[in-house]
């Protein structure tokens, strides 16, 4: 189904040649493949692999684009350890990932299960719930967020109706990050659609058997739905963690590009942008980017290791 399950099968068993009809028994389509893959190969090397190698090199240099890169060895990485803003950006990003991703997935799963109970108007609800995912990444919504959670914003006006005195949620360092976490949770529509599709693949006979055994709704959810859905939950978790680490637009727009107030929304990629493209410290930014890759790799690896304890594969 997903790129992840694909990688899993590729790594566990070698895919032999498919059984095919006699007419299909040809040796190789090498020449045709070269033609069909030509753009991709060119892109892979020129747009992806070459820059990948170049940024690995740059991460060991000081480079401001005006003069040639200067080899500094591990200096950039040493500097990172002593850079309070970098450590702050890691703190911000991890807080965002560790809270935003699970909250979003729980919301997505809850609403998907609710909708799957055979509710009428499923298609309508699904569309409405998906709408925020469609727009959530846009600058327009980030601008809206700035107003909604501002000092005189919509949220405070709504709270005022109940006699609660609000505050400048975006301008307060204690709350600014949470408005962005909330924005992430708000876009739970897309994982929900994936969950819904997964729920529909669970054969009804399992629920019937559970009912015959007198299992309650909650028990059915725990013992049938959750295990059978766990590969899809896993997939969503892995993908959301990877993308959440790269969050940029919302923090950039809500904080006006600063990561403020007091660096409370200084996301890792935002700091990377500031260092690389505003302060022209391209070497440092490259080093940061590689650390990001290692973090994402480590998180994905950890997810895969932990999956042995909770993801259930039927086959």
């Amino acid at each position, binding site marked *: 189904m997903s790129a992840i399950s694909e990688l899993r099968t590729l790594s566990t068993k070698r895919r032999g040649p498919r059984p095919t009809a006699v007419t299909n028994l040809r040796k190789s389509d090498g020449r045709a493949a070269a033609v*069909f893959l030509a753009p991709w190969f060119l892109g892979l090397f020129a747009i992806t692999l070459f820059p990948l190698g170049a*940024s690995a090199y740059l991460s060991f240099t000081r480079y401001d684009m005006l003069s040639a890169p200067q080899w500094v060895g591990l200096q950039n990485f040493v500097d990172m350890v002593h850079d309070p803003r970098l450590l702050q950006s890691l703190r911000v990003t991890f807080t965002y990932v560790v809270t935003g991703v699970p909250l979003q997935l729980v919301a997505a799963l809850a609403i998907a299960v609710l909708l799957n109970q055979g509710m009428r108007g499923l298609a309508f609800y699904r569309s409405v719930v998906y709408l925020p995912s469609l727009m959530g990444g846009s600058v327009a919504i980030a601008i809206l967020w700035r107003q909604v959670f501002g000092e005189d914003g919509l949220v405070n006006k709504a709270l005022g109706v109940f006699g609660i005195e609000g505050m400048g949620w975006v301008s307060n360092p204690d709350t600014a990050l949470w408005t962005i976490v909330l924005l992430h949770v708000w876009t739970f529509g897309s994982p929900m659609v994936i969950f819904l599709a997964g729920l529909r693949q669970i054969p009804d006979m399992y629920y019937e058997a559970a009912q015959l055994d007198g299992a309650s709704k909650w028990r059915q959810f725990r013992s049938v739905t959750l295990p059978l859905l766990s590969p899809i939950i896993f997939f969503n978790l892995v993908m959301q963690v990877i993308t959440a680490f790269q969050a940029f637009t919302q923090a950039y727009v809500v904080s006006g590009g600063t990561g403020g107030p007091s660096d409370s929304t200084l996301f890792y990629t935002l700091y990377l942008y500031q260092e690389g493209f505003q302060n022209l410290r391209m070497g440092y930014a490259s080093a940061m980017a590689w650390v990001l890759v290692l973090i994402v790799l480590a998180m994905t690896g950890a997810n895969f290791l932990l999956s042995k304890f909770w993801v259930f594969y039927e086959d």
Partner: protein
Amino acid sequence: MSTTTLPPGGLRPRTTDLAAQVPARRRRGRWRGRTGSAIRHTAMILGCLVMIYPVLWLLGSSFKPTSLIFRELSIFPSEWDWTNYSVGWNSLTYQFGRYMLNSLAIVGGALLGNLVTCAMAGYAFARLRFRGRNIWFTIMLITIMLPIHVIIVPQYVMFQRLDLVNTFWPLIVPKLLATDAFFIFLMVQFFRGIPRELEEAARLDGCGHARIFLRVMLPLAVPALATTAIFTFIWTWNDFFSQLIFLTSDDVKTAPLALKMFTDSTSGSNWGPQFAMSIVTIIPLFLIFLFGQKYLVKGIATTGIK
């Protein structure tokens, strides 16, 4: 036309048990009768309303005078102010339409690139045999998950050397070279589900790979191409990071960058025009959503797009 629907892929095959073929709605839907259902619908509608209220309010407020935006909770303006749109449209260096067209130009290039080159690569991975296919395929899958930040600095240097910064090329060329590997994967998944007999018949008729691809595979792959087109549109339209980096002079700026200029120049004092232009940039997304919903939902569901 069972051949043209997306294959269920890695999910377990549907059971053939007769009971399972009765729609779930009829049997599980009895849930505590009508009251329960009414409660759930009320809850869902309330929930939906809370969720999209900010967006509806954005729409309503774009017709309110700025002073009213800060006072009114209601979606509906108590006093209409149409000038937000004309003021917003004209208050940046260029008319806002220019930025919209810039965005559209990039989207157009990205669409062309992704549709053509990702389909080609997808066909090769799904149907052709060549040495190292599994290795290349694995590399392709890994590039899907590679953060763009780790290649953006050298890319910037590269495009700057070529004097292409502040043109649309740095944003379009990667798409023309199929670097959005996600869509290759989507096409591979789809092509794999097309019965091989069709190609074999074509081959017996003397078709080569080019003809098979163009005449047999592509026409059958319209749903996958539609999904690719829709997501390319949405992602490119919403893209901000790479546009922010590659487009810095006013004449090439895109709609999101222009919106962002509002927040710089006016320090948030004129929310009315800002809101109006926000709505303008959302309209294309909304239209795509309206007309492409079928492919959108199917695409997300079968491939797990974020």
